[in-house]
């Protein structure tokens, strides 16, 4: 019966949305109107999104913004913004998180994490501190470990299979 609660209660949803809307608006008060009744087409540029404290220090901030934005360039509408927060929130289901994590790591959007994606990931993660050899080796290892179907790249299933077993993933 009261199935609405499985998503949000309406008040809750309102509360979240309102709060997030204010967050969204605070990023650029001059751009975002308060009145959203006629669905204005407002996009916040990536520079603003990426400067949020939640993302500011994240090496993947640009990628996150790209994945969640509709135009794929990190410029976000309010809907994208809400999407991002709902996925990154604590309450998001695990599979959903895994799905989006996969998308985030899939830099070239080909639905597979291939070596170039991995290299990018590593370089972002370590701020280019690893040598090329090391990076190459880690990439090989990663693919070796997680690639169940031996196609030399990680599909979403490989990724999910691997990541749901990670001890820290659920946090």
């Amino acid at each position, binding site marked *: *019966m*009261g*199935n*609405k*609660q*499985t*998503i949000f*209660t309406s008040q*809750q949803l309102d509360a979240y949305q309102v709060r997030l809307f204010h967050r969204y608006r605070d990023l650029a008060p001059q751009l975002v109107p308060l009145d959203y009744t006629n669905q204005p087409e407002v996009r916040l540029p990536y520079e603003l999104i990426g400067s949020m*404290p*939640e993302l*500011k*220090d*994240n*090496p*993947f901030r640009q990628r996150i913004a790209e994945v969640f934005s*509709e135009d794929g360039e990190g410029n976000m509408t309010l*809907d*994208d913004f*809400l*999407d991002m927060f*709902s996925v*990154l929130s604590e309450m*998001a*289901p695990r*599979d*959903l998180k895994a*799905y*989006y*994590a996969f998308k985030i*790591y899939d830099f070239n959007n080909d639905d597979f994490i291939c070596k170039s994606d991995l290299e990018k*990931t*590593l370089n972002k*993660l*370590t*701020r280019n*501190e*690893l040598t090329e050899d*090391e990076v190459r*080796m*880690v990439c090989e*290892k*990663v693919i*070796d*470990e*997680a690639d*169940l*179907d031996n196609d030399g790249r990680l599909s979403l*299933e490989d*990724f999910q*299979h*691997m*990541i749901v*077993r*990670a*001890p*820290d*993933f*659920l*946090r």
Partner: protein
Amino acid sequence: ELFQNIQVQKEIIANIRTKPWPIRRKLKVLKQAREIVLKYEGRLTRTRGYQAAGADLLKKISRVLYNIVVLFIPWEMRIKKIESHFGSGVASYFIFLRWLFGINIVLTIMTGAFIVLPELLAGAPFGTTRSKTIPKDHLASAQDLDTIWSLGARLSSLIFTGYLQYSVLFYGYYGNVRKIGSAGYRLPLAYFMVGMAVFAYSFITLLRKMAKNSRMSLAGASDENYTFCWRVFCAWDYLIGNPEAAESKGAAIVNSIRVSISCIQQTQINLSLAVLISLRILANILVLLSLTGSIYIIYFVVDRSQKLEQEKPELTLWEKNEVSVVVSLITMIAPSAFELVAQLEMYHPRTSLRFQLARVLVLYLGNLYSLIIALLDKVNSMSSAVSRNLSDSTSYLATISQSTEDNLSTIIPDITERQNSTLTRTLLEMQSLLNHTVLYEYNTRSQQDPCWETYVGQEMLKLSIIDMIFTVASILLIDFIRGLVVRYLSDCCCWDLESKFPEYGEFKIAENVLHLIYNQGMIWMGAFFSPCLPAFNVLKLVGLMYLRSWAVLTCNVPHQQVFRASRSNNFYLTMLLFMLFLCMLPTIFAIVRYRPSQYCGPFSGQEKIYDIISETIANDFPLWFSKVMSYVTSPVVVLPALLLLFMLIYYLQSIARSLKVTNSQLRLQLQNVSYSKLNIIMMYFTRLQAPEGSDKKPEQESDITSMESSARSASPPRRNGSITNFESPVRHGNSIRTITQSVSRPDIPRAAGATQSPTHTYPCHMLHSLISRHSGYLGSTSGSCRSKSYHNMAYKPCTRYAENIHSDPLFRKTLRPMHTEPAVITAQSYVGHRAHSTRYVIVNEHEARKKLMRSNTRLPRHYRLADEPTEIVELYPRNVKCYIPRPPHRSHQPHLSEEEEEEDPKSSTRRGSFRQSKRPRPLSDRHQTTQFYIGDTINSQLSMEQGLYGDEEEGDQEEDWVNDPQTNIRGPESAHRYGEPYVKPKTKHKVEPSLTESDSASLASSSDQQNSSTDQYIQVIHNKKKYLKSNAKLTKTKSKSSVKLNVSGTNDLVCSNV
């Protein structure tokens, strides 16, 4: 039923969160689903509506309550803030602290409610009994307050011997009166029970928490080797929001990756092995030395303080507190020493951290243990002293009484015999008097001996307090002052303070957690002897929480080597459990082994503390209970019980082992499955890409006879394709869009392939592909508006699937005889056939679409029906349509039976199963009442037909099928269609179950128009196809006219029905 529809909608609503859709789409789907639920839920019975509303309200209220509760979770905001700055590692320390705080709250409530409050309220008031009065000399010393220095002395003396010693804080205060107050509260019993309950509760909560954690983390999977993957993909802590933390995290990641690379490469440290080993041995020796040293020091200090206490009447502050100060100092200094030593060893950082933790834990345990052992030792000597005292006093008493007797006897003899009796009486009186005085003397002497329980409790409390002081001091000095110095003096110093030597203090999670565990261990150890210890600990933890969080936020940097022990990890908890067990042991030992103090505490006068239980059982319970208890505690019961327990443990363990094996096997299987799944997908794709010929091949094996059949056989592979499609959408509940794509994809290449195939098979393929494409199109256009009413069908994917499988072999059989049949039939069957396969593709995607597909693939005459202007009549034909595609190939079975006798039994059995799977399907949407009536009338009418056919049907298979059309109500049309006599009755028959569904009645009238138009369109195609087909054997005109007549006939019929 309608209810099922609602259920489906609810499922959609419930699962929407897990869908990776953009929020706009989610909202749209959610709104739709909710609308349906709201719309139809009320149509069910009124009570159900109320129920729903009630449940809704309840959920809402509980949600609100939950939110309120969340508001009251202590320090949630604070922890979140720390989490955002330092990542979840540091936060886990605070969460752990909070959890401990919760436990201590419960312990405090337990002791407070059942021990302290009753004693305060109903117990003998302060000063009335001896154990509750402060001796005069102590009182004097407790009140001297001259200098600043003596303030501390006074504080400590308060704790030791002042007021506090004789307060509810300690064991000694509690009276040994069995029942107190007007209600007769059994305080001693309660005291004992609560003391045990403290341990029991701690154990239970700990174990439950651990079990929950292990359930949360996929425990069995941890042995899988994904080190690099996790290092890369799970390394970043997405909660970090602080540049410093981010930097250190990045450094840590680089570090860990390098380390694992070096692990792989097996490049060991460049030092020679001998040096390394000797260094490690040296380090271990150092650690061992320091451990033993600390233990010895503690023992020595306890011993010394004991001696001092005996020798000196008045002790200084240091002398009084030296034990706890020394213990606290050791606990503070030794870990740093261990850390220094660990640098010698040059282990892998993770290993060294583990070593460090293990050593610190051993140190803490050693401290606590040596302390408690020393204390118990002291208690031992104390109790022996008491017993000596006691024997002294008795001997003293004896000597006195003897002497008095002697005196009396020497004095008295010369008194006359008459006075003898009175004299003896006075003598007795005197003796008793003397006894009293002696006893009093003894009492005043023994009052000097504090009860050992209070003493132990005092030590624990002292230790706890001193530990708190030291913690605060260390936070202030080591972290805060250091932070200040580093920040403000780094400019005027020759090296960079921030990055070189002093740096900022790191927040060492593991050590701090260990310290918390140690602290909690102290509480458990002392809780029995000092009931207020948990309460004190609550205060301490609160203070620690604030101080630590402040210190962390102001002057700490996160540890570089983060020990991964998060919420889902049981590491801390395991250590805590270990600690609890080890701390419980001495207490239990003391309870069992030592005799309670004679003159203080609730158990005074008893031989053993636990005697209170047996005493209560003996005195206050009915006789039978004590009897039962004596039986239960006798070896006769205990031994088997123990045995049973062992057996149980063994059994459970073996089960766990087998489960583990199963687990690993399942994992293997999973891997295999993922391989095979991939293979299937690959095969599917290759098939799609390959030309038509390759598709046909498997079918050609079955029926090679004619070109027609080979061409036709293109449909089975498609069905295969559809099946593979089918699986995935049902399982994943994926979006519609993706499936339509997958549907249209197979169709188009086939069509392309079909164009290449020769002669008259060509149109068939073409048409077919057209149909399927159009149906797909239709489905997508009208699906959205119709989807609601058909959702109830979605429940049956499994049965459909089964049917699908059933029908598959059927088709092959029917195909074979076909080339001998009249062309119309083949064409028809073919259409049905095709329709069937395509329909399945769409069944999987969406019910509405499936329906449409069916209607599309239906024979032309039925399409005509759809053109009827009246809405109601329209509805009826659609109903008919929906299930007609099936009949055609059904109807071929009789042919089969006629022609190929040997196949008949098989096919008939198949058919039976077919029908079975079909029958349970009827689902009625009876919310649109008027239409429902219509459906009903038709239904009944048709069921009459069905009755007729049902009777005939069994016989049909061998009998002449031409008879059937006559019984058909649609006499005219069947008469016209001489080519399809078999089809007709069967369709009729099949219509019946479909009508019972009557769910098409729920179709919105708006969608009907659209559908009718599309139906027309399809009909044209069908007609075309008919022409083409009929070229082979029948004349166009005939087939066409038959169709038309058919249509008109049915229309009339339907109208009359209405």
